[in-house]
């Protein structure tokens, strides 16, 4: 929290990002004091992020100039309407002047000066946000995350940390810059979690870089921002910002993670069978999903390695308890629940007869929920429905 009060800029207290950020959060909190813990304030006024602080210091000048221009021009407009409107019986001919060259020049030169100031601010801020300056300013070691968008889910891969992956929930350390490399496997998506920084489009065949960070541990909301098909609105993700020690625990557990081998004959074991081999020739889960430490290594669906430790289902369509309730219907008929979902329905098209029976679904659910990180490395506890960090 010590990096953003910059010399040379105004230090008056009400201008400080902390003050304004706190005010906004307070206002939201008052409005929703009785709310559940899963209430998010996705907001670019979250000054925990270096990105947002920089945008703020750039914008404050623009906002000030905008207010002056807005008041000046609208005052001129309304003054002329009030002063020069036709009164009853007034038939005088107004003065027929054709303009005023001096005034015109002033009205061109002044905006040009304003535009120049804004351009300088823009370029300066870009230089700080789009380069390694970002990491230098945030401090600490940069974490590289490969962000993959697909219709309609996200995968987050940590290439420098042994290459483990997480689907739809991006975990990152507080107070360190994340070097996000964004790409897509099909159409264009948009990676956007306003609390940690700006957007970057996920374009197939391209790897675009964006730096993001947040100093405050917490769970933040992210969304797809580019129209990508029927479930564009259902392509959400969580950003879980962990304190350094929790982050280290999570990383070492995730690196070492091997999916638990279920006891023979257990529900989990039967679930694993279907997961790996499918049923009656229907496509297997493992053909599309990857689970670290098993033969399942598909890439057409989100990574399920830590599924049992995750809070969301269907790329953020359901959270917490609802996610658990929807798990079996989701496995059975994903496109029926989420428009355009590419996960096959396990229902025969003609007869509408379920391919997976209740027993199978229970087994699969049991197996999926067993895919858990060690308790000390979990950021979400399915039993209590609580995150280890505040939801913001």
């Amino acid at each position, binding site marked *: 929290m010590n990096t953003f009060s910059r010399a040379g800029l105004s230090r008056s207290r009400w201008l400080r990002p902390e003050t304004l950020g706190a005010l906004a959060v307070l206002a939201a909190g008052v409005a929703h004091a009785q709310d559940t813990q899963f*209430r*998010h*304030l996705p*907001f*670019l006024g979250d000054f925990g992020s270096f*990105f947002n602080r*920089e*945008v703020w210091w*750039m914008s404050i000048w623009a906002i000030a100039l*905008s207010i002056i221009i*807005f008041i000046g*021009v*609208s005052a*001129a407009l309304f003054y*002329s309407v009030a002063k*020069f*409107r*036709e009164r009853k019986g007034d038939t005088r001919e*107004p*003065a027929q*002047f*054709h*303009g*005023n060259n001096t*005034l015109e020049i002033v*009205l*061109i030169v002044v905006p*040009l000066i304003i*535009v120049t100031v*804004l*351009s300088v601010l*823009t*370029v300066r*801020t870009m*230089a700080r946000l789009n380069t390694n300056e970002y990491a230098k300013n945030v401090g600490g070691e940069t974490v590289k995350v490969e962000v993959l968008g697909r219709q309609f889910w996200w995968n987050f891969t940590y290439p420098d940390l042994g290459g483990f992956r997480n689907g739809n929930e991006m975990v990152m350390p507080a107070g360190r810059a994340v070097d996000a490399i964004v790409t897509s496997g099909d*159409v*264009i998506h*948009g990676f*956007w979690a306003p*609390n940690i920084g700006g*957007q*970057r*489009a996920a*374009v*197939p*065949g*391209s790897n*675009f870089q*964006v730096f993001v960070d947040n100093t405050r541990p917490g769970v933040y*909301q992210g*969304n797809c*921002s*580019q*129209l990508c*098909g029927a479930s*564009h*609105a259902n392509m*959400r993700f969580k950003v879980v910002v962990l304190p350094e020690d929790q982050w280290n625990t999570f990383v070492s557990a995730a690196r070492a993670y091997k999916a638990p081998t279920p006891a023979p004959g257990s529900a989990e074991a039967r679930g694993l069978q279907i997961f790996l081999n499918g049923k009656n020739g229907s496509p297997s889960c493992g053909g599309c999903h990857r689970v670290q430490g098993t033969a399942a290594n598909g890439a057409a669906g989100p990574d399920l390695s830590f599924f049992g430790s995750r809070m969301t289902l269907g790329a953020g369509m359901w959270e917490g308890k609802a996610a658990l309730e929807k798990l079996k219907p989701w496995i059975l008929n994903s496109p029926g629940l989420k*428009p*355009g979902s590419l996960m096959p329905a396990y229902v025969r098209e003609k007869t509408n007869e379920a391919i997976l029976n209740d027993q199978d679904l229970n087994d699969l659910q049991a197996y999926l929920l067993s895919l858990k990180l060690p308790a000390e490395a979990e950021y979400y506890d399915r039993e209590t429905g609580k995150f280890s960090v505040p939801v913001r």
Partner: protein
Amino acid sequence: MAVSVPSKSGERPGALAVLWDYMTTTDHKKIGILYLVTSILGFAIAGLLAVAIRVQLANPNQDVLIGQQYNEVLTAHAALMIFFFLIPAGLFGFGNFLLPLQLGVRDVALPRLNNFAVWMFIFSLVLILTALWNGGAPGVGWTFYYPLSVNQSGTGVPTLMVALILNGLASLLGSANFAATILNLRAPGMSLWKMPIFAWGIFSTSILQLISLGGLTAASLVTYLEIKLGLSMFNPQIGGVPVLFQQFFWFYSHPAVYVMLLPYLAIAAEIASVFARKPLFGYRVMVYSLMGIVLASLLVWVHHMFAMGLPSIWQIAFAIFTLIVAVPTGVKIFNIIGTMWGGRLMMKTPLYWVIGFVFNFLIGGITGVSLGMVPFDYQVTMSYYVVAHFHNVMMFGTAFLVFGGLYYWWPKMTGRFLDEKLGLWHFWLFMVGSWMTFLPQYLLGLLGMPRRYYTYPDTNVMWHELNFVSTIGAFILLAGSIVMVWNFITSFRKPATLGPNPWGAYTLEWTAASPPAAYNFAHDFPKTFPTERPLYDWEQMGAKLKPVDPATIHLPQPTVWPFMTAFSLLIAGYGLSHGWFNSGFGSIIDSVNTITLYGGLVLFMYSLFRWAGTFEYAVPVHHHHLTKYNNGFLTMAWFIISEVGLFAVLIAGYVYLRVAGLAVPPVERPPIWLAALNTFILVSSSFVVHQAEQDLKKHKVTRFRLGLFITLVLGSIFTLFQVYEFVHFGAESDWRQNLWQSCFFIIVGLHGLHILIGATGIALPYYQALTGKLDEHNHGSIEPASIYWHLVDVVWILILAIFYIW
């Protein structure tokens, strides 16, 4: 169908007679009315779709419109509002009705081309509707970003592509027609610098359309070709760049924003001057700022793509130009206020709309500048902040001036006032409704709500509340629209009693009757134009209009062939959208596609030749024009700018792919010797056609005919060689696998299509010469055909250099 219902009253013609009149008309006023009626219809449908969108978003997790259905509705909403309301209403609706009237002339440069353009515009809307029973409406957003557009196979995307190309062609022909009209046809004594500001608005907008529209055509064409043939410049699997699509698309679609602005800014200036009883404040500066906006708007398109990972230097350059656009736009706003300053403001509805516009546009302009500041844009691009911004400038910006223009010119168009009281209700409902609808959306953007979301969870702070307020606003807008329609309808209950100039306005359209007669003016104008306000000046000078006997005025004769030509393109467009040349007759659907495609093309040729074979005027008329060039030549010269733009966009894309090392030519390339031979053939044909043109001027008709015949033969030989080359090269490898080959077929193939178009163009005067349609009063279409042929020639030389030699 052919039986027309006898009309009950003897005076009113039957519906079919009216329809026939509009199908065959060459009258710019009727054509303007067609554009305006279609635009209002487009606004109504798109507005209802917007209400549906707002109903879905009023509360979280609703299922009024979900998933793809919602995307289809939002695509239709945007496409209709842009291509069938804001672009045509100002430029072509008001433009057609008013430009010739304001210039004091009887029609546009090419009245029959105008008829063709308006019907093709209407048919492009009809074509889009056919997608409904053929794969469904396109649901890819009006921006149809690649690869989403090709990802949704089997939907209405190809229909939208064909419709946009036809719509664009209509738009270009209309724009070229306007530019030629302004240069060639003005009342004697009216110099360019004495034209009304609205005429400048139309001129600058037309130029902008002509320069930039190639971008949209290129984007639609390449998308279409990928869907139909697998030819691509964007496919990342063969090295293509998806973002290149956006470069093409925004190269037009950003300037399009100004196409939706400039005519309206000029309307605002006209209204401000008349209702303040004063001249414009800084007329020349306003004209320069129109041109300044045209120039600057061509250099800002990348600001739609700041989050697309482009090199920083690009982003910076385009950000600076984006900010600079604020300067000329600001000038326009300041000058509108300056025009009102010190005047005697008649507080009537047209002025209310202008005042409302200035205030709203001020906010839209300021938020627009904020979006030019790149780091802020990284946060809010593709969010509801952007949605609020562009509705701020378009919906409660320029659309306000559509209404302002309607209230202002309604007396001229119908001879009746619109009701003031209803007008104020309409205005205030729109003012309040717009603010309630869109101001919450700015906040939604800052609170992280992305655009184009059909649903949202109830767990995000304030999303529900703000969306709900926005929906209430949409219903207030709906109420305002109902008042507007009611106002239109009730105005027709009163008789048309108004004189020529009920507002006491200053420009020439106000000397014509209300509504104007077919010939516009039964008088000649004084030849002195001291300022852009001739009626005011003439009154001061005591100059009088000189009556002319209407019986001596000749107008172009009505003909159905331009309509039929446009109609044939609808038919062929249907086949091209839903089928392809090899659809065959395997099923009923395939047969329909095949018959419409080939049948449409045959009908096109037939109608076009019938059109060329019909005299424009029933009696010989001597044409006056202000430049030494005739109307056909001048219109074609302007139109050629758009062709250059189209090839420039595609070639720039290819050169980029080539320089970046992505498009690598295969070892076996089309042989250079054949291309060299073809170059020789084409260049020779250019000389031949030039000689033929000279021969016609010297009245050597036989030599003229021979020249055209030789040109056609040379063109055919060129085409045969190229077909041979394409078949050979296409068989050697798969163009779906090689980016260079794909680019080759797209660009060289498009040039081949231009050869066919050019040859058709040459065939028309040849046919006119053979049937004795060329004489001293009727020059036929040789001049435009000839320069078009030269263009095709020049483009070929460029293609030779970049595809065969490089």
